[in-house]
């Protein structure tokens, strides 16, 4: 009987069994950002401890950075204070920082892969739940809290409970206009927002095999929205090709040895899984959330369900979500008016996401009542997009082109919804109040669908616009 990638990586990184029965797991790469780390560095200082392996630790700044004017000191005093704290902590503890002045700054889950820091077979931890993104490379990557950030800083280790593995096979081929975002939204709808608790999700099957690394990152990114702390894809030729030539990837002969090792840690063909799920990829359509958690979604041509359409324990939650969203059960989700369009985030702020969105808006205008923001996930993404002229396409369509950061995904910077605005968003969370207004409303969808909603001023099926684009 073979092993899964999770099993192999777990064994390789086990330092010892703790007396509590937990595993002391070595963290091969620790990523740090400004929001969840200041208290951890303070605890270290208080205890007189050093950072155990500063060369396995990297920091950047993403959540609080303004995406328009970035001159220091920031206009927002608290943002400035958080930025300054990270700079001081990194200096004092010897942690490399990709700060605002660096060409490599960006959302932590965008820059790790981009720089080749993220590699197959690693264990990766970060004080951020979307660390699952890095699983796209066949790493075991998970989010942790601030006390655990302190533990990793001090010991490079975590006390972990074992995980089970659920393999999710996506069969067939995606239709044009259907993206990785739609696949993961459909998976979460099927398995539920807590279906993955206790599991690592292994994504496999023909649809996943054909995905680019950007797409695999979108898929793994939202594992946590399905309750799974870890999601991963087995490394293959696509993974190896992506990493070649990246700044922190091995070079020369070492790259070939690395590539062989990376492939060797993939799940064995005869590996045993704790659970298996099959998803018909060919039958998927563009998805849109109608509720207040990422599992409450519908295909673009479906109707919004009501309390009567679900089983008893869900009824109150559905009624509550519809009341908050101001949506009516039984109405088509298509045609829902939007006020704001947000393209960006660690889910969908990469170059290919911007390319797809640009393909939709090229030669079109955003509806006059829509405020639209395009926020690249990193400076490198921004530069690459500008080299292709995408910023011009967005600006000509009436969308704002911003600096890299998390922006309106969680609105810790000035980019926020106002009042009850409805936002078509390429981000990952539609929780109440998530985008900065306690009554603001979020509809999650793919970047192409956001672009289509921006143009139409309401939720619309991007496949129609794409057919038109192709035909013209």
């Amino acid at each position: 009987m073979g092993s899964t990638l999770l099993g192999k990586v777990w064994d390789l990184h086990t330092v010892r069994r703790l007396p509590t029965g937990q595993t002391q797991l070595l963290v091969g790469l620790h990523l740090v950002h400004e929001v969840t780390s200041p208290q951890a560095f303070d605890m270290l200082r208080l205890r007189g401890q050093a950072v155990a392996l500063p060369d396995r630790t990297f920091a950047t700044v993403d959540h609080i950075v303004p995406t328009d004017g970035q001159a220091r000191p920031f206009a927002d005093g608290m943002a400035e204070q958080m930025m300054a704290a990270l700079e001081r902590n990194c200096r004092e503890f010897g942690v490399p920082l990709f700060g605002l002045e660096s060409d490599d700054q960006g959302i932590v889950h965008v820059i790790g892969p981009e720089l080749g820091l993220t590699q197959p077979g690693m264990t990766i931890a970060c004080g951020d739940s979307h660390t699952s993104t890095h699983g796209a490379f066949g790493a075991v990557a998970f989010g942790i809290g601030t006390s655990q950030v302190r533990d990793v800083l001090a010991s490079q280790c975590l006390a972990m409970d074992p995980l089970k593995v659920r393999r999710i096979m996506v069969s067939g081929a995606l239709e044009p206009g259907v993206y990785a975002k739609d696949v993961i939204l459909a998976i979460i709808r099927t398995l539920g927002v807590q279906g993955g608790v206790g599991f690592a999700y292994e994504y496999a099957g023909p649809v996943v095999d054909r995905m680019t690394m950007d797409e695999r990152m979108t898929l793994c990114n939202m594992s946590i929205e399905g309750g799974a702390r870890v999601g991963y894809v087995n490394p293959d030729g696509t993974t190896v090709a992506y990493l070649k030539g990246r700044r922190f990837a091995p070079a020369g002969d070492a790259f070939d040895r690395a590539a062989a090792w990376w492939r060797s840690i993939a799940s064995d063909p005869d590996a045993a899984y704790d659970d298996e799920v099959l998803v018909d990829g060919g039958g998927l359509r563009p998805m849109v959330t109608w509720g207040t958690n990422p599992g409450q979604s519908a295909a673009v041509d479906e109707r919004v369900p009501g309390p009567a359409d679900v089983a008893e324990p869900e009824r109150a939650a559905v009624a509550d979500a519809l009341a908050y969203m101001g949506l009516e059960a039984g109405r088509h989700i298509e045609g829902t008016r939007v006020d704001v369009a947000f393209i960006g985030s660690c889910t969908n702020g990469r170059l290919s996401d911007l390319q797809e969105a640009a393909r939709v808006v090229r030669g079109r205008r955003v509806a006059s009542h829509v405020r639209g923001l395009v926020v690249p996930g990193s400076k490198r993404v921004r530069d690459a997009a500008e080299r292709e002229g995408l910023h011009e396409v967005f600006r000509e369509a009436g969308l704002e082109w911003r600096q890299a950061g998390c922006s309106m995904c969680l609105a810790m910077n000035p980019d926020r919804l106002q009042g009850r605005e409805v936002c078509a968003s390429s981000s990952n969370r539609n929780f109440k109040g998530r985008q900065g207004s306690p009554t603001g409303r979020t509809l999650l969808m793919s970047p192409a669908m956001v672009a289509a909603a921006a143009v139409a001023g309401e939720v619309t099926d991007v496949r129609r616009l794409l057919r038109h684009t192709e035909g013209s």
Partner: protein
Amino acid sequence: MTITGRAVALRGEDVDTDRIMPARFLRAVSFDGLEAHVFEDDRRAEAAAGARHPFDDPARAGAAVLLVNRNFGCGSSREHAPQALARWGVRAIVGESFAEIFFSNATALGVPCVSVRPDAVRDLMALVERDAAAIVSVDLEGLTVRGGGIDAVCTMPAAARGAFLAGTWDATALLTADFDAVRAAAARLPYVSGFRPARA
């Protein structure tokens, strides 16, 4: 280890950490004072609707046990959420189920999260909503939650429970005990040693 005290019931499935602690309060470099803002947006919304959020009920102030429903603490990894609850006074959380990162964060702070069956949650919630003075006790050794004649079996992952019973829920001491072993484990990893040729 047993936590005993008054309890507060917080109803709702999939209560995410954005609701427990809205992101604007993460704009800080310490956890001090977070307890004042726990569930702030929900509390305001309830007040605006002429209702009262349980965390605004003076009879619940300082309650030691928090009763919740399914998948409590999902979403963002922000430790600010359990920090705020702990600073507010919560010393144990009893619910149907918990999101994983929230569970580990709470554990690291010494706040155990135990699971009971949905009907037991329903009965316990009904009890404390009826009687704000009702005393609930959470016994990690005996794995029971008791109060007002209710005697419910609870569960908790063995390792986390072991850590509480052994008093080692703050894992730092355990993890830093043997750094040579950590170094040795790191040195065995090909990506740490630079993918050197096998025979070099």
